[in-house]
């Protein structure tokens, strides 16, 4: 076995995963907070007002990172769901299920901030165009996965059923992303590109990217925190979990 798979196996073993993430999580949250605050300072204080939207555009600094985050969370969930269904790896099941609520939160923030932003810009909270509708469907997909996972008694069976659903729903992700180019919508088209020049001023771009980084770090911190709990629940019969429950081992909050 090469070192990578070896590492994966080691990290994938529940006690190790629990211990390592326990050490990691505080740092991740701290990093997310720090980077986020810098980004916010850049976005709210340093960046100038937009010539068209005046200061209302500042919603972009949370709306867009959260929108990306929601899509990323779904992809992350679907990848883990695929691994869980094909190779039946316990950690993947847990990671997939842990990313659903976090993704749902970010999607909800996107919807809420988008609606708030829409009021001054479009004159309405909500319209039924493709971008908005498909984003709403994304939220429903997350909620469906969470609901299905919670409604089935046996944890592993629940995880596999919900993973299956999540996998089926992946078709919605490209629809969300490309909806602005496939249909004509009220929502504006792609302005930030990773490859090629962005159509956005750099004084606005760097806070945006910093906040995107911060939300991604937050995502992993939160997913790990949730996974640890699920792991403890799932492995409740094992020695290591009992040691943690009794407090005879470090690593619980």
């Amino acid at each position, binding site marked *: 076995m090469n070192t990578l798979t070896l590492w994966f196996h080691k990290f994938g073993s529940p006690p190790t995963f629990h211990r390592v993430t326990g050490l990691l999580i505080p740092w991740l949250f701290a990093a997310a907070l720090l980077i986020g605050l810098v980004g916010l300072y850049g976005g709210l204080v340093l960046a100038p007002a937009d010539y068209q939207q005046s200061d209302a555009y500042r919603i972009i600094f949370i709306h867009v990172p959260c929108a990306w985050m929601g899509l990323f969370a779904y992809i992350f969930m679907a990848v883990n769901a695929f691994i869980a269904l094909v190779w039946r790896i316990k950690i993947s099941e847990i990671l997939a299920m842990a990313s659903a609520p976090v993704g749902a939160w970010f999607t909800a923030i996107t919807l809420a901030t988008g609606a708030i932003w829409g009021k001054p810009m479009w004159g309405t909270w909500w319209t039924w165009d493709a971008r908005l509708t498909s984003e709403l469907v994304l939220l429903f997909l997350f909620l469906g996965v969470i609901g299905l996972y919670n409604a089935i008694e*046996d944890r592993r069976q629940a995880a596999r059923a919900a993973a299956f659903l999540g996998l089926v729903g992946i078709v919605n992700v490209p629809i969300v992303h490309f909806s602005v180019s496939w249909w004509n919508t009220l929502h504006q088209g792609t302005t930030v590109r990773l490859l090629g020049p962005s159509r956005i001023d750099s004084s606005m771009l760097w806070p945006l990217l910093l906040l995107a980084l911060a939300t991604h770090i937050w995502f992993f911190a939160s997913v790990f925190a949730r996974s640890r709990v699920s792991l403890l629940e799932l492995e409740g*019969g094992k020695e290591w979990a009992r040691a943690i429950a009794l407090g005879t081992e470090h690593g619980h909050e």
Partner: protein
Amino acid sequence: MEPCPAMIASDPPPPIPLLQAEGLAFARNDEPVFGPLDFTLNPGDVVLVEGDNGSGKTTLLKVLSGLLQPNSGRIRLNGEDLTLARLSHQVALLGHLGGLKLDLTALENLRFAIGVFGLRSGAAPLPALASVGLEGYEDVPVRSLSAGQKKRVALARLLLVPAALWLLDEPYANLDKSGIDLVNRLLDAHARRGGAALVTSHGAYAFTSGTPRRLPLRPTP
């Protein structure tokens, strides 16, 4: 599987075991339900699974039928590994749920079972119903049968399908004395036909011929 050396001529070649469990264990959320079990069922064997309430009898039968996945160990049917995706005609399960449509009559229920599972040679629905003591109830919707009568319809299904391995979960519950005798007779005939059966029961009833083999399950800790 290996060819048997013909040194002792009187010994028949060892039969391929119908069911073979090796190190079979099941745990729910990592709490063990039944420990590693090893056992073999040859054609003609009837084994009584014994254990207190909650010792895992029902769970064992579900695992053996493929409805639950064991945590470790393997199950072989006629020498082949059991997976839910690749089932054979070999297993018939009689669970706590009868597997009967309450709105259909006894006869219609049996016809459906035959369609899905096939028909044992020489068997037919009407005689099967008669032999479980339900003559005259063929056209009654199962809903309006009593608890014991429903169980008898489920037993008639076993008689019809060609499965060689019967997994029976508390077949005696809800049956009157003649019903208990009936189950024993059916098991006897099935064994003589070369079938095998795994029966859970609380051990209050013995089989007819000889003492059956027993598979004790320890209670969960």
